[in-house]
């Protein structure tokens, strides 16, 4: 029993420590906003992770920077502008639609449409060829008749 009490007390004290360790500078709503923004931004050191996921030093600095700006009452657009002014459109996982990004946005869809068009044309050409009604050439007719005659002979025997 005494051991049990000791364990419960030990766990309770751990919980108290854990609570203290959470960042308290932001309220939960602002914290969530900062995390959503961090998940929109690419970490330029590792390139395939968001700032929210990355363990890179720069990502940690930028997470802190986002928190500071959220705390200062900046809007999401202002914070994203701050980042693109420094790191370019490349930091945005959803880059803006511009002349230079048209291919990026519509390229895959365009390739899909082109692929479908090619497939459609190939299939139609194949069907047209199959449906083509061509009379048998003389030698073909002779071969066909020979085959039919041979088959008829077999049946009779």
């Amino acid at each position, binding site marked *: 029993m005494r051991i049990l009490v000791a364990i419960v007390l030990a766990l309770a004290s751990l919980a108290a420590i854990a609570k203290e360790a959470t960042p308290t500078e932001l309220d939960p709503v602002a914290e969530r906003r900062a995390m959503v923004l961090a998940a929109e931004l690419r970490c*330029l*050191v590792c*390139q395939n992770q968001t700032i929210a996921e990355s363990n890179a030093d*720069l990502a940690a*600095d*930028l997470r802190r920077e986002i928190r500071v700006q959220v705390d200062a009452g900046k809007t999401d657009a202002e914070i994203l502008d701050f980042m693109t002014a*420094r*790191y*370019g459109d*490349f930091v945005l996982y959803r880059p803006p639609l511009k002349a230079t990004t048209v291919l990026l946005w519509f390229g895959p869809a365009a390739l899909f449409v082109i692929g479908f068009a090619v497939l459609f044309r190939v299939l139609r050409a194949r069907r047209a060829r199959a449906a083509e009604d061509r009379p048998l050439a003389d030698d073909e007719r002779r071969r066909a008749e020979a085959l039919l005659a041979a088959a008829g002979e077999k049946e009779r025997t």
Partner: protein
Amino acid sequence: MNRFLIPLAAFVALLVFLYVGLGLNPREVPSPFIGKPAPAFELARLHAPDERFAQKDMAGKVWLLNVWASWCVACREEHPVLVELAKRKTLPIVGLNYKDEPADAKAWLARFGDPYQLSVTDRDGRVGIDYGVYGVPESFLIDRQGVIRYKQIGPITPEALEKKILPLARELEKS
């Protein structure tokens, strides 16, 4: 004939794209700073912590801002190129010591040579963020009006120095 020519042409086009893609460096992200004024900063000097240096102190000069750190492996590779450049005295170099311990930074310069007119300390990396630094070393070529004209991401190679940075610096010097 057409049946084979068109797929062959498409395949060759794909090969060309893939080949070009192999040669591109994904770390070289186009900088949004080219043609824009260098972000303002004022930081303590590495060797004289009581004195401060601001980017506007270099107004009227063409200069190179080099971001470096003693923990940065690629900086060591770049360093001899900068030391060599400093000897020519054609282009002043200012060092931005990025997220580093001043003691380590000074020891590093004492060991490998100090090509910098002066270095400033950016211990928390805040000025680095303003300059969009993401891979040390990085270098910015800044003109007389304080506008960034060129950014080198990663070490300055002798080739980049001779073919891009110095010719551009000479041109900016004239204007």
